[in-house]
């Protein structure tokens, strides 16, 4: 790797992950989900995380997102080690700094699309208007639909709108297309790509789908709780050109 580049971007490191391990104690058995992960995540970049099932992708993302605790190691976010944060600090961290998108959308069924976004904008510091966030993901026309009245892809786009509406520093997406067919998946990825490009939101996307890696700045390969490889795309493919 060339040292020059690291120098330049050192200022813009959002996350610095050092020696991160996670061990689940299952009765007698210990499951090592992460065995010492080191990596950096830079501002404005789009990372795609690949790896076989059980390799620890979700675990890593959840710890970075302040949803789960680490067994050892550090996750430095803007100079602060979130593995040592209190419950209250973590809540605040999620509330103001991180946007999440999950495989199963996790929308509130009793609220409309607009209200689902408002759930976040109501408590954020410098939010967009829910309508604007929904317009970004191409759902400006479906504001008053309940989740049950939306397709899977539409629901996922609401989830993205919700995640970006607070103008988060990072967007963490765990298999955002996992429950969608490829055409719908591409619409969702386009939304993510657009957010990353236009708003400059640092974005991490977990996927099983190797083809999606084409849209990333960097691709992180996990296997068996360790980073096996990090590759950089010289040319990023727009999601519209991805096929699977």
């Amino acid at each position, binding site marked *: 790797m060339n040292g020059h580049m690291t120098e330049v971007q050192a200022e813009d490191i959002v996350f610095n992950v050092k020696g991160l391990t996670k061990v689940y104690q299952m009765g007698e058995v210990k499951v090592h989900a992460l065995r010492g992960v080191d990596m950096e995540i830079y501002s404005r970049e789009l990372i795609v995380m690949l790896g076989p099932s059980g390799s620890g992708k*979700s675990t890593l993302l*959840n710890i970075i*997102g302040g*949803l*789960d605790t680490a067994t050892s190691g550090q996750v430095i976010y803007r100079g602060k080690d979130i593995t040592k944060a209190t419950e*209250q600090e973590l*809540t*605040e*961290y*999620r*509330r*103001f700094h*991180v946007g*999440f998108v*999950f*495989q*199963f959308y*996790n*929308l*509130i*069924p*009793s*609220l409309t699309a607009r*209200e689902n976004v*408002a*759930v*976040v904008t*109501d*408590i954020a510091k410098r939010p967009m208007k829910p309508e604007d966030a929904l317009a970004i993901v191409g759902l400006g026309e479906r504001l008053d639909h*309940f989740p*049950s009245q939306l397709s899977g892809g539409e629901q996922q786009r609401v989830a993205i709108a*919700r995640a970006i509406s607070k103008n988060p520093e990072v967007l963490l997406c*765990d298999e955002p297309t996992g*429950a969608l067919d490829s055409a719908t998946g591409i619409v969702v990825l386009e939304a993510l790509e657009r957010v990353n490009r236009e708003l400059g939101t640092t974005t991490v996307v977990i996927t099983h789908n190797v083809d999606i890696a084409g849209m990333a700045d960097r691709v992180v390969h996990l296997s068996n709780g360790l980073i096996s490889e990090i590759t950089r795309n010289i040319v990023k493919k727009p999601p519209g050109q991805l096929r699977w």
Partner: protein
Amino acid sequence: MRGQVFAIALVIVSGVSTYVMLISVMDSLNLTRDKFYKDYGFAEVFASLKRAPEILKNRIDEIPGVDQIETRVAANVKLDIKGFPEPVTARLVSVPDVGSPLLNRLYIRRGRMVDPWKDNEVVVSEAFAEAHRFKPGDSFGAVINSKWKTLVIVGIALSPEFVLQARPGAISPDYKRYAILWMGRNAMGTAYDMKGAFNDVALTISDDARLNDVLIQLDSLIDHYGGLGSYGRKDQISHRFLSEEFKQLQRSAEIFPSIFIAVAAFLLNVVISRTISLQREQIATLKAFGYSNRVIGIHYIKMVLLIVLIGIAGGIAVGVWLGKGLGKIYMEFYRFPYLIYDLRPSVVTTAAFITIGAALAGTIHSVWKASMLPPAEAMQPETPARYRKTIIERIGLGPLLSQPTRIIIRNIGRRPIKSLLTITGISLSCAIMIAGTFSRDAVDFMINVQFRLSQKEDMTVTFVEPTSKKAVYELKGLAGVEHAEVFRSVPARLRFGHRSYRTSIHGIEPDSNLHFLLDMNLKPIHLPPDGIVLTDYLSTILGIRPGDMLTVEVLEGKRPIRQMPVIGLIKQYIGLQGYMDLSALNRLLREGNAISGAYLSVDSLYQHEIYRRLIDMPRVVGTVVRKDEIRNFYETQAEALLFFTFVATILAGTIAFGVVYNSARIALAERSRELASLRVLGYTRAEISYILLGELGLLTLAAIPLGFILGRALCTYIAIALSSDLFRIPASVEPATYSLAATVVVVSACVSGLIVRHRLDRLDLVAALKTRE
């Protein structure tokens, strides 16, 4: 699930234990009473008269159907007890000189029977002895037929005739100021000039005899001797009170447990339907493997039965424990030699049967639906819930709502029926609390009407026999007596059509300053110079209305029978009476201006001195002090009131807790994913607790006014169901009772809220993200 099972079982425990407690106490009292009556020869017919020669007994014996006869001498006396400055009166009853009484025999707790040849020996009632800490050998003074005498206690006893020991006309038993004394017939005969004569008779009748016929014939015999009208057991005062108590226990045993069982059935329904919908896939899998519908159904039925059986077992244990406690309290009022605690097996089976029946009725529909579910359909997840904008939003209040609040109201709006049932369940707990504790308000109200609005005299003085009006000057002359008004009171039978009622008619001064008659709005009315005014409930019993002509048969003196118009009705909560202008009553009796006693208002500084003087006045047979009566009333009620408040609080608490906790747990199970998602989005624990508990809080708050209404209705129902000629319970509920009920509900809801909150704090955020709903 465990918490919910526990909560439901708790509600069942409450219902079953209330039932077991009330019914077992009723049965126990009943059994004890019957045994005591039988073993100690409680009479079946009673009559008082002025004076009849002993040979009249033979004629009474000839009345067909009469079995055993006991003639007696009885009198009211004043007591003078050292160190107790308040007026005390007693009923002095003779016992035969040879052998023990044939009827109404005494159970000697301590000491012995009287020596027939000693005229200073008495056996005293146990309650009175206890109240004054008397033991055999102690003595006190008594004014017997105008002569002051020292009486020595030789025994302490109980009698089936005085299981409830209350002065006639009193509002509650008073053990300090009212006593039953038994004295040898010979000694009493001498003292009251009743040698070879009697003034009281008690009978038993043979099994095939008709009570009414006996009463009519007995009356015709004793009429010539100043008979006051004979009556059967059902009008005997001690027996009456006991029967009323049974009625009260029976009614309570119908009302309260039904509410619990209904709530338990509702809770079971909610929990079982929820469990079944969670286990759809398992049901489908089992069916795919060839399990029959029946097996699946039985599986859930077993679950219901298990919960119910835990509840029933616990309920019986707690019920027996509470029943024994309540039995002890009743033994303070009703003096039996012992209490035979009786839990009939049929009570247990009834409780079990009803509970199981209600539980199955509440769940069978869900179970049936589950067992009929085709496997393929069961494999599918349930259709997603449909939400709509609620009325609150449609009327334009939408923009005012925060998202969490919106979630709350949409969830309530999505299942209006379930929300309504939850509200109803909580409101029932509030209603139970009100109905269980309103008796204090009712009692306060009764006391207030009786003693503060109506009878304002400080003291009521009764003369031995009708006396010239001049006697009042003697009373007015006592130092400290500020004002005196006279009254005349005669026993009478009132008739209208074929209905009749035996009571007394009070003649009072028309413009009384001490004794007021109140109309239906509790405003004093003016007593007209002619005609009669009746207690409203008495007019109901007689079926008579103002303007109708009432037949009055006086049971004293010349025993005139006269028709007179009912000119008004008055509100009275205790007893039934007719009121007339004093001079009109005197005219009716053709007796000049005789009086029975006087109402006094006195300077409280002179009170004790006045009592002393009254003891010495031969004409005065008894004195009742209003303040003492009120104080005694509260003292005797206090323990029972406390017990019922305690029980009601626990019961209401369990319902509120059971309903709120169950709803909370189910809401938590249904929404944990949604709430975890909100936590992921950066909502704090407090904020998501608000969504879950806010909904329950809202339902609880909505339930309280409904609970007030239901509680009030329940009180009215109880008041109507329990009203009798002895007393009518006003359905009066004070703000303090409402607020206590609301407090119990809110606190119980908060406790269950806190328990659920504890679980919310441990919500697994990651798990919520891994699963599809």
